[in-house]
């Protein structure tokens, strides 16, 4: 039954010209390996295929060792002419097909290369736009920073000064900071007699979290001046600790100030 199916569907020819799927091929091979009729058909198809291929590329056979059957001269000439014509025709058909296939493949390759080049160009343009946008953003940020820096560099004609006096107990000193953020000066009392050349000033939240710390050299015998930006001290409670720095660089407590920062009310314009 299976043999009849193979015969009817030209499986032998499709096998020789490699047009079977892997599954069909395996099934057919398992059959024909033991089927002389299928093998005859396969070998005939193989022979025809190879012979046609040789004829198409114009392979001329060498003289055969056995005698050719006798033919009349004119018939032999006609036969030779017909054979030559067939060879030439076959060769030109094969050549045209081959050339056409190569041209198609080359065109396909060109199209693929063009598409790739277009994609690369689009990608490059996209990257360029992104780079330009980033450069613009950077320029804007730089301008803003420069403006800010210029503003900060403006001479401060009226710098609020807050003097903190060492007190005993937990009494808090109130600092009314101006509503507009600006630099302020904290004037801190030194110990008496003054023992240190350098001091460490620490600003902490009431729970001991350090908010700012800096080293200060005294500007006078009695006072330390510390310049801070008021934005560092939004309205809240703080502890400002002053430590003297000894020779071994160990801090020695000098003063501890509990302060409450409040915002000073905005000045109201005079009524007309």
């Amino acid at each position, binding site marked *: 039954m299976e043999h009849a199916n193979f015969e009817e569907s030209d499986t032998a020819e499709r096998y020789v010209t490699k047009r079977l799927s892997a599954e069909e091929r395996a099934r057919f091979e398992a059959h024909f390996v033991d089927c002389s009729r299928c093998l005859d058909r396969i070998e005939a198809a193989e022979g025809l295929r190879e*012979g046609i291929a040789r004829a198409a590329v114009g392979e001329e056979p060498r003289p055969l060792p056995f005698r050719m059957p006798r033919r009349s001269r004119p018939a032999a000439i006609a036969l030779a002419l017909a054979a030559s014509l067939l060879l030439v025709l076959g060769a030109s058909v094969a050549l045209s097909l081959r050339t056409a296939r190569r041209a198609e493949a080359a065109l396909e390759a060109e199209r693929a290369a063009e598409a790739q080049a277009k994609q690369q160009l689009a990608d490059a343009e996209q990257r360029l736009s992104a780079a330009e946008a980033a450069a613009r953003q950077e320029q804007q940020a730089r301008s803003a920073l420069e403006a800010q820096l210029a503003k900060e560099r403006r001479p401060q004609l009226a710098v609020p000064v807050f003097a903190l006096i060492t007190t005993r107990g937990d009494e808090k000193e109130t600092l009314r900071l101006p509503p507009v953020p600006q630099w302020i000066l904290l004037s801190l009392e030194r110990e008496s007699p003054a023992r240190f050349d350098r001091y460490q000033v620490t600003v902490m939240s009431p729970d001991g979290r350090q908010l700012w710390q800096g080293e200060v050299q005294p500007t006078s015998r009695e006072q330390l001046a510390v310049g801070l930006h008021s934005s560092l001290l939004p309205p809240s409670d703080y502890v400002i600790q002053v430590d003297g720095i000894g020779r071994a660089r160990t801090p020695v407590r000098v003063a501890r100030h509990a302060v409450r920062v409040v915002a000073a009310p905005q000045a109201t314009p005079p009524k007309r």
Partner: protein
Amino acid sequence: MNEPTASEPRSPSLADRIRAGDAAAERELVERYSRGVKVILRNAGANAPAVDDLHQETFRIALEKIRRGDLRDAAGLSGFISSLARNLAIDHFRRGRRSATDDPATLESVQSLEPGALDRMVASEQARVVRQVLEELGTDRDREILRRFYLSSEAKEKICEELGLSSLQFNRVLYRARERYRELYKKASSGRDML
């Protein structure tokens, strides 16, 4: 005499006889499957020296496995042999193995006038026979059918559609060409064998 088809288990006891050490059974195995194995190897792309090499290898491994009892189902002997041949060919190409027959030094040593002349003679006969077959077909259309089907590997359906042929007409051309080729080639081969 009706030839039994390959789907019937012709010699289910062939594997048993080989396992029992029957040398005649081993020879029978090779004779029965040799031609089919060579077809498979050629189809897989092996050239003549590789076909000989792989053909030997196929039967060496097949006999080894059958003796060892690796073939569970005796009815699957044909499938076993065919897939073994195909897999060996695939493996051969995958590894790019340099067998003794691929070694240029060995090739040179076995090249003699006799094998070369025989190959040329066979190829000449084949080409001559095919030319005669093409001439006898009579029409350009029939010659075109064969060229397109065998040389360009075009599908039968496409050829039929473009040339306005029925499946039956197509099959008839192929059948005539094939049968005539076999007849002429057989004559030429027997003439060669008589030399």
